[in-house]
């Protein structure tokens, strides 16, 4: 399942996508993120699921454009170089911007 956390507002699209079929619940992304944006949660989308999944914390989901800014220098960056994306060995994490 593709869980899209974030938002679209007048200024653009800001989504972090976690593919819960790929996410193994290791939590490496949660420690890699310098802004503390990610957490492990119970998989509430599948009542039979047994492992937790990575998710964007509620308090950050409405401001990830700002929360993630320090990792995204204005002069261009590669999504693959983002600490959370790099830390995710199964490749479950994506950024839309």
């Amino acid at each position: 399942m593709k869980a899209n956390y974030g938002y679209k507002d007048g200024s653009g699209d800001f989504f972090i996508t976690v593919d819960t079929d790929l996410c193994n619940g290791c939590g490496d992304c949660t420690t890699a993120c310098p802004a503390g944006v990610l957490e492990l949660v119970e998989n509430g989308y599948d009542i039979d699921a047994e492992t937790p999944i990575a998710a964007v914390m509620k308090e950050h989901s409405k401001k990830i454009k700002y929360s993630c800014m320090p990792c995204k220098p204005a002069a261009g960056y590669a999504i693959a170089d983002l600490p959370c994306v790099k830390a995710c060995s199964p490749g479950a994490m994506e950024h839309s911007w």
Partner: protein
Amino acid sequence: MAEVQKGKEYWRWTESRWTSPDMDWKSGGIISAGVDVGSVSTQAVVMVDGKLYCYANMRTGSDSPESANNAMKWALEGTGLSRDKIHATVGTGYGRVNVPFATKAITEIACHARGGNFMYGPQVRTILDMGGQDCKAIRCDEKGKVTAFLMNDKCAAGTGRGMEVFSDLLGVHINDVGAMSLQVAEEPPPVSSTCVVFAKSEASGLLRQGWPKEKVLAAYCSAMAHRIVTLLERIGVEKEFAITGGISKNVGVVSRLSKELSVTPLKTDLDPQIAGAIGGALFAKALYEKKGK
């Protein structure tokens, strides 16, 4: 219970309740309930053996537990059924952890998919829920299991709250906005600002230029429809398609949305705002059965 229309409360949408005319809760089946406490509206649904028995849909008050209690009380009104006879209850929605009598809280995404599957049938693959303070787009399989979702609860554009701002600005009742927006001979260009604050100043400018209310509403409904379409692009739209939530009652947005997507949304006789609560009641039944085994 039906609220008396007060002065200038253009946003005050019509609350509703319903009881199945031909069912009896005393039949001995599993009685399960779902309560969806949204930021604007709260729904309580009671099902007997997975069939819809009664529901209530009302405005959320300042306090989530109280809103949950009130909605449930209204749903049960006149049925002879009381809360202690309900076997399991699932709380969902923005205030899901504040449903005092809930057995479990489940995310509104999962509940909407499950409820949408019940209301519109297993052929539904995409559910768009346009609520008071958020907009959810959900893809699901034939069992009502979520395969992709996004939720936009950060920005008022594309939510009921955004529409309320316009109904207030123009002094048009929220129930009439959609139909009124269709009373234009020619479709005006959509309001260009996404942000509701900026769209409101843009609309004020249009009114000063002499645009009639119908034309301004048409411009806003079409801007909202367009915004939702671009939001849906992230998860993709697969048929069949259904729209739930308060804005699904706005024919001005729905017709423009359907046109832009070239899909006709599925229809339901039920109140489209109760999808989440139905999903909750179905999950409650499943939880009760699981526990029993």
